């Protein structure tokens, strides 16, 4: 029986990466594109953690990289939400004007 080693993880992360790219190419929605980027980030993170497990030298570097990327992804999502909501507000001003008037 073949053991699933580092290459198996590499193939999986390559698949996630390809899915992310397809998302970027086909989705027209900004949130959809953001999700594609999240897929790519996760693919990279999986590589880091798997490498930390299978490359028999240092054990921590891959994990540190992955932790920091998770934090960074959260930060980017926060900026993304702020930007997209502002964009949405401004680009739908023609329709949303009534609603803001009602709210005062």
């Amino acid at each position, binding site marked *: 029986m073949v053991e699933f080693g580092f290459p198996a993880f590499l193939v999986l992360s390559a698949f996630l990466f390809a899915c992310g790219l397809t998302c970027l190419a086909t989705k027209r929605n900004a949130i959809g594109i953001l999700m*594609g980027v999240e897929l*790519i980030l996760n693919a990279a993170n999986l*590589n*880091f953690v798997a490498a930390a497990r299978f490359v028999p*030298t240092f054990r921590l570097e891959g994990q540190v990289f992955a932790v920091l990327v998770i934090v960074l992804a959260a930060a*980017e999502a926060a900026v993304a939400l702020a930007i997209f909501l*502002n*964009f949405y507000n*401004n680009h739908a001003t023609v329709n949303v004007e009534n609603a803001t008037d009602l709210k005062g």
Partner: protein
Amino acid sequence: MKSLADVQNALLAGAVHFVLPEVVLVGTACLLFVLAVVYPRRTAAVGLALIGLTWAVALTYSVGSGETTAFWAFVEGTPYSPHLLAAIDPTGLAALIRWLALASGFIFVLLAWPEIQDHNAGEYLGCLLVMIAGSSLIGRVNDLVSLFLALEMVSIPTYVLLYLPLRGRGEQEAAVKYFLLSILSSGVLLFGFSYLYGLTGTTNLGALLAVLSAAHQHAITPMALIAILMVIAAFGFRISAVPFQFYAPDVYQGGPTGVVAQIAFIPKFIGFVALVRVLGLVIRPQDGLPFEASTTLIPLVLWVMAIVTMTFGNVLALLQDDLKRLLAYSGIAHSGYMLIGIVVACGLPGNSTPALSGVDATLFYLIAYGLMTVGAFALILYWNSQERPIRTIDNLGGLGESHPLSAALMTVFLFSLIGMPMTAGFAGKFMLFVSAFEAPVEPPMQNLYRILAVVAAVNAAIGAVYYLRIVGVMYLRDPLHPVSSARRAVLPLFAACLCAIGTVAFGVYPRLIADSTQQATPLVEVPGNAAVVARM
């Protein structure tokens, strides 16, 4: 003799001293964020930002070359190479990059003045200082993790800055577009880095490159090839090289002018610096370049990229009427010229010592490009007013009469962009072309390099057409609108003067900068360190 652990602890404890100016900049940014809440005034914020920058400059000046000496002192008497161990490497490019970042910081604070108001001054300038600190770090961090995060330290404030000053529809589209493409490029870069880490098991840049070049003496592994191509693609976005350039015209046209000036310089600057560092061109490993091996694939890829980028940029710039769009395409074309130096440096055989290593020519051109492009944006900012907006080239009509000084400055920048003698643009182009022409390589590649130099020269001639058109409009055409008597902000004009002085000074006497760019990129080699590399 000191043990490995001793050396490491010393390097770790000493590392703080290598980033003091950056710490000051980030500290000032924090103060600005606080100031924005308690005392939201534009004057106070600009004053505080300038104090922070001056302090950082004073620290940089007082350190001088002392950091390099201190860096080497850590390993004195031991067989270890600090490049393979330290988290921060103040040798090579680092000092020059820090000076450049700080100088651009001053110019951008001056440019920010007309675009900020009391209510957003603190946030704007705080983000700007974080960006400057990040770009200064990129020259010196010696670790993939830090390099990636330092790149993000420039990107994230950029998203915010694109959004802060103006809130029209055009700006917002520009911001969303830039944001999505920028996080995509970060994702691709990270994926490339993850392969590099998987191949070597280390994130220390020096050690990683040493391991790779030892492994790639005969052939490059497919994985390393894919990794470096992804890294080149991701940096290609930042330097707006074809085919990753398509965001640039829209963002330049839609974005607020002061921020566009930053986007025109800082991402290109850090993109090139990070690229030469990851390609191992600054501190060359002993066993040859990490990604070149015996193949010439990477230089070829960059060669094609350089030719396509400069031609695409120049040809499309011919068709533009919008001034900022034109400058976007011109920026793309200039990225193509700058890539020439990288191509040359990538293809240099290990033992050669040419007069120009390629990287130094690119750095020189980068400085020249920064001066002339940022100067041009400063003047657009200066001329632009509500009654008389500057959008298309035709808006510049009659400026030669109504604003003789600023029109003369613009002419200096445009002549430098063309590459007229006595300007920094000429000196930079000359260095790039010579480095390509004189590169000590074998015949098949030698011909390619000469073709590259010739194509670049033809492109420079095409570029002259659209730059001269702007000069013609300024001096020969009548104004479209009556000249407004509105008070203008003087600070952008002051910034433009500084840029023009630099453009002319470095053009008349290029050694002022050429010496430091050459010192920053010595063709020295780092010995592979058995103790560290043996971990593999």
